[in-house]
């Protein structure tokens, strides 16, 4: 229901007018490489084995370059548990350029964690809290006939409750079909419970129509408001029209600060989440 979905409808209408798309040879400005930090701390309530902290560090390239992944392998990363007062190293992972991880850090729901990163004389940090995820009763699925907007097939529904006494909650859903994540720019399922009742009864999760035999896995991550905004800004950027119907393009607001040089924040994010998963292999039913 956010406004960018309305821009999408607009773009569709405009294309319906017979507008045409063409590749344009446009000279683009060139900037210095920028530091990108993509950090995830995930706490699996019912599967602590999966708990993980991983951070990918890289620098950007020119827009038209085929390969713009320039891994950074000489950064120093640490994670602090602010409640426990403990610190852990994140070490580079072999054969995974730019990736730093630690799977042995004991994570606690509700605790605050600070990521610290040191690279080329600049210190970066970001802090997040492991917020609870909604209480899941079930991910169910059922068959729906073809409508104007949706194909026929099996759709997934969420039933459970969202802890509204804490204020507005934010979630990200990831949906895998046969172990492959839906991960195009239109596949971001970023939700707020602002317009939802506390008790949620068979709420349709996404507009994917599955077939009998598909193995579907759903993961639900809790987000804080900053990460919720980050993903919304990211999607808005990926669909940006240059500022005609959308807002002018801007880099998504990162939740990482550069403590050495606050005017020069990095790109990317540090997402601290609790997560739960579910799913099913679709069987025929009406």
């Amino acid at each position, binding site marked *: 229901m956010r*406004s960018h979905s*309305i821009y999408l409808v*607009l773009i569709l*209408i*405009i294309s319906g*007018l017979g*507008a*045409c*798309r*063409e*590749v*344009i040879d*446009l000279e*683009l*400005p*060139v900037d210095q490489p*920028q530091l*990108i930090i*993509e950090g995830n701390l995930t706490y699996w309530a019912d599967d602590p084995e999966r708990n993980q902290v991983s951070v990918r560090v*890289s*620098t*950007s*390239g*020119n*827009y038209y*370059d*085929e390969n*713009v992944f320039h891994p950074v392998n000489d950064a120093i990363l640490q994670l602090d548990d602010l409640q426990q007062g403990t610190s852990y190293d994140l070490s580079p992972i072999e054969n995974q350029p730019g990736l730093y991880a630690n799977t042995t850090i004991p994570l606690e729901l509700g605790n605050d964690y600070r990521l610290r990163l040191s690279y080329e004389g600049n210190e970066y940090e970001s802090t997040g809290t492991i917020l609870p995820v909604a209480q899941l009763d079930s991910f169910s699925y059922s068959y729906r006939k073809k*409508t*104007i*907007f*949706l194909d026929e097939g099996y759709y997934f529904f969420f039933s459970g409750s969202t802890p509204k006494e804490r204020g507005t909650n934010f979630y990200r859903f990831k949906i895998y079909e046969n172990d492959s*994540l839906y991960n*195009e720019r239109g596949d971001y399922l970023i939700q707020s419970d602002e*317009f*939802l*009742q506390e008790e949620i*009864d*068979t*709420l*349709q999760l996404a507009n994917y129509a599955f077939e009998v035999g598909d193995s579907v896995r759903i993961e639900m991550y809790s987000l804080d408001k900053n990460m919720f*905004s980050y993903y919304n*800004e990211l999607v*808005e*950027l*990926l669909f940006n*029209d*240059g*500022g*005609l119907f*959308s*807002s*002018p*393009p*801007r*880099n*998504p*607001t990162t939740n990482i600060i550069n403590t050495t040089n606050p*005017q020069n924040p990095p*790109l990317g994010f540090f997402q601290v989440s609790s997560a739960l998963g579910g799913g099913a292999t679709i069987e025929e039913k009406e």
Partner: protein
Amino acid sequence: MKKIYCIFLLALLYQQLYAQNQYTISGYINDVSNGEALIGATVSLREKPGTGTVTNVYGFYSLTLPQDSYTVNYSYLGFQTQSTQFTLSADTTISMELGDDEVELQEIIISADRPEDNFQDVKMSREELKIEKIKSLPALFGEVDVLRTVQLLPGVQSAGEGTTGLFVRGGSADQNLVLLDEATVFNPSHFLGFFSVFNPDAIKNLELYKGGIPARFGGRLSSILDIQMKEGNNKKFNVSGGIGSISSRLTVEGPIKKNQSSFILSGSRTYADVFLKLSNNEDINNNTLYFYDFNAKANYQFNEKHKLFISGYFGRDRFGIADEFGLNWGNATATTRWNYLISDKLFLNTTFIYSNFDYGFEIDTEVAEFTWTSKLREMSGKLDFNFFANPKNSIDFGYSVQLHKFAPPSIIPSGDTNFAPLILDDKFALEQAVYVSNQQQLTDRVSLEYGLRYSVFQQIGPGKVFIYEEGKPLSDETIVDTEEYSTGESIQFYHGLEPRFSARYLVGNRSSIKTSYNRMRQYLQVASNATAGLPIDRWIPADRYVKPLIGDQIAAGYFRNLASNTLEASVEVYYKWMQNVIDFKSGADILLNNNIETEISAGKGWAYGAEFLLRKNVGKTTGWVSYTLSRTRRQIDGINNGKSYNARYDRIHDISLVVSHQLNKRLTLSGTWVYSTGLAVSLPSGRYPLDGQSVPYYDPYGRNAHRMPDFHRLDLSAVLDGKPKEGRRWNSSWSFSVYNAYAQKNPFIITFEDLYNEDTGFDLEGDDTIESVRPAAIKTYLFSIIPSVTYNFKF
């Protein structure tokens, strides 16, 4: 302030004392063919060049002169000048009907003089367009479009091809006051901005004020677009209409009381949906897509002193996909005006206005079921006096009051109980203004127009104000208190003076220098960080946190007529300052937000430029060429790291060429060509992979620092009138238009995305395998060459 007032009084007194045995000639000037009042027609004296007056919006004029013999000239562009000769020895009423150039009338001295308004008149930065001129120009899909023609004028820019939003001298689209018979039209566009709502058959006249704005207007920063509806033919019944490629129009007009009172009804409707119905595909023939406009106006003359006008406009867009999705929006306006000629020197018009804009969505699918509505309403009352004191002073004064209601979206879910209703708080405001201005002929060479407007704005209850923790950024988390206000209670109060000044100095007998200054205050604005306007745009009033916009503009110009007044040339330069300009933070939620102040950043804007215009209004070949050199900058906290940047519609060079040529009695050919520097945009200066996406990187100091490719386009049209036949009332004509004659693929938008298999139409959800992926810049262009034809008739 006091000083101005004193000078004003003294000037009046002096003129009154000095003059003795004065008498007034007054009356109306109308079009002989249909009785329509001629607005801004010139009344001048042969014996005293430079002395005279112009008719007001109702065609009324009044001139007070010493007892003497006079030859009075009545002139209006495109009409034959008429003169009367008489000895003024008592108050006299002379109403005049002017005919167009072809009509031969007896007992009339035909003057060779052409209107010299261009350099004679004190007004500057104003553009007047006759509807006939607009109708002869090429049109997109053959739809004659008032706003798109206005975009061809110097100093006026658009957000992009096809859009009808106006950007006047660096102002944004919501800084134009669009008036239809004095009623505010909040969203003057159809179909997401591609067509404007003004039915050309119902419109008589339009005037655009870009600067030197008279004190009687206020409420917007950049411009006033004052559109007058036709009154209807008071001599005979007429039916006229047109059948076009996408819409048809029909107008009926005629006398209620011959030569005195008349009515007009005019409607138009598009019929794209009629063709949709012909489709066999159920996905297509179930859909709705149309818009319509309906205008009605009537006037009734009770006696020589009282005349009543009632006019209304109603238009709506409807867009629907089967029964599952519906979107509609529209304006409704109603204006009641009462002309009261208190004396032959004092004219009073009392106006009551209602204006409403609303939109709604209805979604009724298995996934979601809700209705979404939003509304904006304005009710106003106005008193406007014209006091024709003497030939050297003509004074306007008045008062206006407006009650605004802002009803932001309310979303009511039905069916699915998982959603809670969302109802944002309505806001109310009361806006009042008093003004006085004088147009004064100081010497033979110097003419002035000066005035003062005092405006008062109150946000009133019912309503609430969130109080935020001091010294902290405004956000949901820093709300510490909520103040509640009851109905009518003042929540926030703003007021201020708005001085206006224009001066003209005649140089030689064919040219003049003019200068002007005006301050404008704007108390409501659109909350949007996009450039193009949409029906869902949210208007917000000035409140505790959003301050009113204040704009100051100075302008100066040189005006000259050439080739025995057949060519008008002008150069104007301007500089404009704008305070309290707002923009929005990254990822702002503007639409569904009850405390929008948390998303706002405020700053300033400035714009400057030079406008060159050469225009030919008479003869077989008419038209204009204009060149605008301009810059528009903004500086807003938190945007572009606080550094100043180009407004998106900043266009350095802008050229318009508009030519009409009457080849023979039946055939008129027209063409327009426009060229402008590309819009200012932000372009990515890098790219990075993140979360499986390919993300463009934008320089945080590079807001709108780059340019789209330059824009240019040629449109052509031909109007072929039917063969006139003796004694036959039926007149018809064909209009042929070619939009974008050389099929220039001007980019509408440029997007940065991954290109699959070198195919811009590649469907990721389709079955084709991906063979290649590369980052690309992809342009979307709207229209290639578009021919259209319209058949017009009148009987």
